[in-house]
């Protein structure tokens, strides 16, 4: 093969591969387009701070520090997790974590509020630019974390990390084949990760900066 043909084939291959690569990368991005308002005292860049209330501690104990697992070599971070019996009034502005009555298929839920305390209205609230604060609620019925009729703490920890991922404004990935904690449901050994994957960290890095 002469040099010209080789160069042509190389360029052709690159031409064909590049769009595929960028397509695959786009599929692995699942951060939302919204942001916290500039007046918000807490956001992922300043450091997310949570207050775990009585209901959550009483039901699940001090597992909520798994929120720190999101921290990495990038700007977005969790900087504090205060817990009951510390007084909530000593931590005004901290994002509340509590337990609530939910449908039995729901493990956890994140809520976003505006400056006026209204729930954020948008097709996807995480695409909104009106976010002032967030709140995480975990199902108060411990049995929803049962796997084979036994309470599974890995599942609970996965859900807490998952909901904190929403506070970082990460969506559920559309690509069901990538490994992520942001997939919904019981963790498995393949795509639904119980820990924060490199894909998840990459999304925080791109969303909130290096």
């Amino acid at each position, binding site marked *: 093969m002469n040099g010209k043909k080789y160069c042509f084939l190389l360029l052709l291959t690159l031409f064909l591969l590049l769009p595929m690569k960028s397509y695959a990368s786009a599929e692995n991005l699942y951060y939302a387009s919204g942001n916290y308002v500039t007046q918000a005292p807490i956001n992922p860049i300043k450091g997310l701070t949570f207050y775990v209330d*009585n209901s959550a501690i009483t039901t699940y104990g001090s597992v909520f520090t798994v929120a720190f697992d999101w921290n990495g070599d990038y700007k977005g971070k969790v900087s504090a997790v205060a817990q*009951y019996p*510390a007084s909530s009034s000593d931590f005004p502005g901290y994002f509340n974590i509590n337990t609530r009555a939910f449908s039995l298929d729901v493990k956890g*839920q994140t809520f976003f509020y505006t400056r006026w*305390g209204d729930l954020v209205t948008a097709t996807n609230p995480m695409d909104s630019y009106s976010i002032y604060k967030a*709140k995480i609620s975990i199902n108060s019925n411990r049995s929803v974390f049962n796997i084979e009729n036994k309470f599974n703490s890995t599942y609970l920890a996965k859900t807490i990390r998952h909901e904190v991922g929403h506070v970082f404004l990460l969506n559920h990935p559309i690509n069901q084949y990538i490994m992520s904690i942001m997939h919904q449901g019981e963790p498995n050994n393949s795509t639904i990760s119980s820990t924060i994957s490199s894909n998840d960290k990459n999304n925080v890095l791109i969303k909130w900066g290096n």
Partner: protein
Amino acid sequence: MKRLILLFLNLSFILILSSCKATDPKVAENDNTIPSDTQTTDVIVDIPADIEVVYNGGMSDRVIYEDLKQVEDKSSLIIKAVPKKNLGQEVSTTYDYELNKDLPDAGYTKWEFEITKVYKGDVDVKDKLVLLHDYYVWPRSDGKKQLITLSSLKPALKDKEYLMFLQYDDINKGYWLVGDYMGMFAIPTDEIKAKIKAKTLKQPDIEVYDYEPLQYLIPIYSEVAAKYFN
């Protein structure tokens, strides 16, 4: 002597009373507990047609079923039923010390359904059950009402028949749908049936909010239609 004893008893009584202060809820809240309560509305909550919808379903971690068998296996009750009476709603709130107000989060509306057909479970036609439907109506700070839904499923309509896959909740004394958009299906119209047959059915054709792609909706709906709506 008797007078002295009576005087002493009166003084003691006054002293005991004065040492008991009425408990202000906000004072109690500062005593290391966060105020967290459930506000119950017993009246029927009608949903205005033009109400603003707050869809909160995209920020949850919930079970996703991949086929009808999984939905059926999880259900303790599979029935057709008609919503007859709105029994009010229960909304959980937390007092926010920064904004100085109660912020709503979880909540549900209770509906009484009348069973019209039983596929699975120990119930009979004409029996009534309570569905805990995960939506509620809440006023915004400007007073305008919002429909807060934690599910992709649109609220059930009174007197309309639905196929339902249910689980009983002992704590909250009612039935939940087993899954987000996989627990309740309206009886399809001829138009919907034709679309199922032609395999042209799309998410907006079904009574769900079209806010995020619901991966298993169409496959499961097609299975449901073939098994329960033929």
